[in-house]
């Protein structure tokens, strides 16, 4: 599995959705809706993650409803899951942890 050269906020958003739905897998349009970003931004991110080995994709096995095109489903690989957890912990939860003491300074003064 390759390292990602650049991790943008959009990639973090997509990873968050994928971590939450990694069991079932979800399609590009649903991910774009969840992260509230245009599909034109999300599809290249999915392609990049798949190429780096973080994701696997497959066509849905169930017969789609009448007239609907097949969906390409994405889910994290086992390595991708670990890497995504690490990146999210570092970038999202890590930054929250750094911010929290700063924010609590004011609160601490009030409590005191």
């Amino acid at each position, binding site marked *: 599995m390759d390292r990602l*050269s650049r991790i943008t906020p959009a990639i973090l958003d997509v990873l968050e959705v994928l971590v939450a739905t990694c069991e079932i897998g979800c399609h590009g349009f649903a991910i774009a809706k969840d992260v509230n970003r245009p599909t034109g931004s999300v599809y290249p991110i999915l392609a990049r993650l798949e190429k780096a080995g973080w994701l696997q994709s497959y066509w849905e096995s169930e017969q789609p409803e009448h007239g609907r095109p097949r969906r390409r489903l994405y889910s994290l690989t086992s390595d991708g899951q670990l890497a995504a957890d690490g990146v999210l912990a570092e970038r999202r939860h890590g930054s929250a942890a750094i911010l929290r003491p700063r924010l609590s300074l004011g609160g601490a003064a009030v409590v005191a």
Partner: protein
Amino acid sequence: MTRFAVWCATTVVLPLCLIEFNELAPWLARKVVTFGAWLVVDSNLRERYQEEWWEGVEAWPGKLVKLIRATLLVGLAVPRINWDIFDAWWQREIGARVAIGALSRSCYSYFVYAPMTVPFLRGDARSGYAEYNRLLAMICKAIRTADTADRIEAMEILEALAQYPPSWIAPLHCNRVINDKVLKDLRDALQLRGYVSPSNDGRGVGAPYTA
């Protein structure tokens, strides 16, 4: 008479055209998606993207909305995907990350958008494009490995290429024959600087990143 013509245009023709366009929009959206997928440099991915993207566009309600969504999707996704393909090719061939920050904006857009014109090119121009890519790879290698003076010179060549690309790169001139002079000048310049041995004529060094 003129008033009647204007009245006809605004009350009959224009609404009819709008209705027709509205009916046509999903079909146009489909064409936009197909065309967008066709512009992806890696031909192995085109069919997949076509189906996948259409599913994303189809999910939207309305007719005109589908067309707008398809246009936005293609406009955003294709350059990014092509850039990633180019980036991977660059890393494989040059052995480093794209140092494109050192280059001008025109150079950046040249790398991203020029591959999209390849499907418009005639067969002979396509082979010219592959040759051009090989030469680009060599210039980029020179930028990375040569000494400072040569590196500056190689950068200048690359910048000049980005500003004055061969005429067959531009889609408007896609029917023109390859501008052999550009390739020859470039090859000569590289040979003079010892980047290309005359025996292999640049072939076998690097590979085109077009699929």
